[in-house]
């Protein structure tokens, strides 16, 4: 048993244990409780629902790792979606050519990046707490979006946009492919790039990073800019899935993204965390909700169980680390 744990930790990292145990438990429990759980339909529904929450979680992840947070992710995604929607409408709405859609995507990414950069500059140069800055940004973006849309939907997009939200490529859902691509990008960013190294360092001690010559301001600005870009990707997927943009879409995901990150072993104070355990944690959350759905349980109960899962995982982690300290003392 012990050697298995050591091998597992050496291969996947110690932070992978919790999410994997949760994954196995969820599969076992629902596999036994609902006969139709282990079916293609379940995984199809998970695969299509996962990307929205997943992309927003990636957007939340980088700020969390720096010891900050980005509360404006959902509205940044909405505004980026709006930017894309307007570009499409300006080019003929449902009849817009593919080139217009590419332009629309660029507009969305630019909007997300701009919102993120603005947030990052405010945090880096005022040294105000990210909660304050991003909360202000969230309220600003919501207000701006509602003002611009008068609280309604913007819809009517070309038919070729829909597959981005619903279609499949080689039997795999396109939104899932996009999400997996983004997970891979974030993984490389965090494990191999200077920016990833720097953001983890400032997450555990910004001043020490500064004394070692890391450009902490630049890192903070880039982190929030990339967070904004990832929001824009989520915004484009949401536009395609709902075939409309509405300010407030996905609003309930905001704190779930934080939950998913912590479930994936991200240190709440910053400095430590990896993408892959967070990815597994996201899958677990989505399986939990789909499983309950299959068993005919109320959707709101799923949300409640997410909270319970988090508490169980936290307790288990504390017990596990106490056990480890106990064993070390004995040895």
């Amino acid at each position: 048993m012990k050697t298995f744990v050591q091998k597992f930790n050496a291969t996947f990292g110690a932070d992978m244990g919790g999410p994997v145990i949760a994954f196995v438990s969820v599969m076992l429990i629902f596999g036994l409780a609902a006969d139709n759980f282990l079916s293609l339909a379940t995984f199809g529904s998970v695969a299509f629902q996962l990307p929205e929450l997943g992309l927003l979680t990636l957007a939340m992840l980088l700020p969390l790792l720096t010891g900050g947070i980005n509360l404006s992710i959902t509205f940044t995604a909405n505004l980026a979606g709006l930017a894309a929607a307007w570009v499409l409408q300006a080019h003929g709405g449902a009849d817009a050519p593919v080139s217009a859609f590419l332009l629309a995507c660029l507009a969305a990414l630019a909007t997300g990046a701009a919102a993120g950069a603005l947030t990052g500059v405010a945090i880096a140069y005022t040294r105000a707490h990210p909660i304050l800055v991003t909360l202000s940004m969230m309220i600003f973006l919501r207000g701006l979006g509602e003002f611009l849309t008068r609280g309604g939907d913007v819809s009517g997009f070309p038919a070729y946009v829909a597959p981005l939200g619903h279609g499949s490529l080689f039997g795999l859902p396109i939104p899932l492919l996009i999400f997996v691509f983004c997970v891979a990008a974030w993984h490389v960013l965090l494990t191999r790039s200077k920016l990833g190294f720097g953001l983890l360092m400032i997450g555990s001690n910004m001043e020490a990073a500064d004394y070692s010559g890391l450009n902490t301001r630049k890192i903070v600005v880039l982190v929030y800019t990339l967070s904004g870009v990832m929001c824009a990707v989520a915004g484009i997927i949401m536009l395609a899935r709902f075939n409309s943009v509405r300010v407030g879409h996905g609003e309930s995901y905001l704190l779930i993204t934080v939950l998913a990150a912590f479930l994936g072993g991200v240190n709440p104070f910053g400095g430590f965390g990896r993408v892959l355990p967070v990815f597994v944690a996201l899958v677990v959350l989505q399986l939990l909700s789909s499983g309950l759905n299959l068993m005919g349980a109320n959707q709101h109960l799923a949300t409640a169980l997410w909270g319970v899962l988090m508490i169980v995982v936290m307790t288990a982690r504390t017990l596990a680390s106490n056990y480890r300290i106990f064993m070390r003392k004995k040895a």
Partner: protein
Amino acid sequence: MTVSHPLLSLKNIKVTFGGVRALKGVSFEVNPGEVHCLAGENGCGKSTLIKVITGVYTPEDGAEFLFDGKPIAAMTPTLAQSLGIQVIWQDLALFGEMSVAENIGFQLAVKGKYGLIDKSAIDAAAKKALARLGIELDIHMPLKELAIAQRQIVAIARALVGEARLVFMDEPTASLTQSETDYLIEIVRNLQASGVAVVFVSHRLAEVLEISDRITVLRDGALVGVYPVEGMTQSRVTELMTGRNFDSAVIAADHDDAPVVLSVKNLTRHGEFSNVSFDLRRGETLGITGLLGAGRTELALTLFGMRQPHSGEILLAGEKVRFGSNRDAIRAGVAYLSEDRLSLGLNQPQSIADNLVMASLDRILSGGLISSSRKANVVAHWISELGVKIGTPDDPIRTLSGGNQQRVAIAKWLAIGPRILILDAPTVGVDVGARAGIFDIVRKLAAEGLSIILISDEPPEVYFNADRVIHMVEGRFQAVYDPRQTSLTELESAVYA
């Protein structure tokens, strides 16, 4: 002053931390109403001894502990407090936002009626304690508005509230000016007159000799001896404290033929230092010493580009430079080892490997990305080069001892390939035994041609490890000493004058 039995008497005190003997069977005695000095270098076991006396640490079996002639079976912090044993630590442990009265009387605060705080009782106690010291102070003033010397008085007054009989003062004069120190000595005399025994923990010898009746000297966790102050000289105490045999040679040498690497001309930052000028040659070690607040660290941070000078010039190899940030300085080959290893020098929660490469990421890139094999090579190279004792490079650096952490911190800067290495108090929090190892590294680096600025508030460190020693006072270069032509005592008396 002689009484039938001492106020405090300890015999055969042994304390071990994880295999390291911090105290090796120490005896210690204080008489009632005595001013006693507990002397020794950093890391000699002074603080550990105080913590045994106040019940923070429990000595090993075989210890004998008498207070007021009565044996104490198991000392606890609460018991120490009720016996009237008080400690004023160097950091004072005061509350900046609270008033003078609240700081002095905060132990009483929990004792109010109905669980409420009795403000008037606190005020009265604070006034009484200050009156006993013969001090007048506005007791409603927030503590943060007081000067350091006044805060020290607040800390002493707080000790008196608990009906103190034995007060330990840990390096009480470290951050005081001469006149403030005189003032403190006056207060200690008042305390002594009112029957309180005071143990002064200090390595500033002049004042120790002025104020104490007896001196207990510790070295490396062992008792060297107890001596009456009459007939003691500063150099004799230094010798006892360090155990340094006098053939311990200075390493100072001439470097006049070597090229000038760094040239500083009339460098000034208002309120920190002014008109600082010096040349640093290849392979030379320049020592800078002086009291806390002399502007040493501020000067270092300016050379490192983290602060910008208001006037004056910095020339590297003859070329004028202007650093916008420490990144410019690092690119130019200037490295700075911070005096504060815990919060600035190293990123304590992160791994040994990440700390080591933090300043030299550009050197381990491959195709724009961090190459894990290059990183591992760099880490392995420096770990072995500097003899750092580690488990694995992925362990958090906070799991290492002070000496090993400092080696990694030095390695972090060597990894950038520096021309100039500024070491700011490199032995703070490093065991006495490990200090020699750090200085061996420093000497080796200088011999290899690195130019070093060695900053320390311990004159012996710069005296024995630098080619020249600059004495800094209130932001100015007071004098330059050549260790070959100056005795350590001369340097020390200049610094502590």
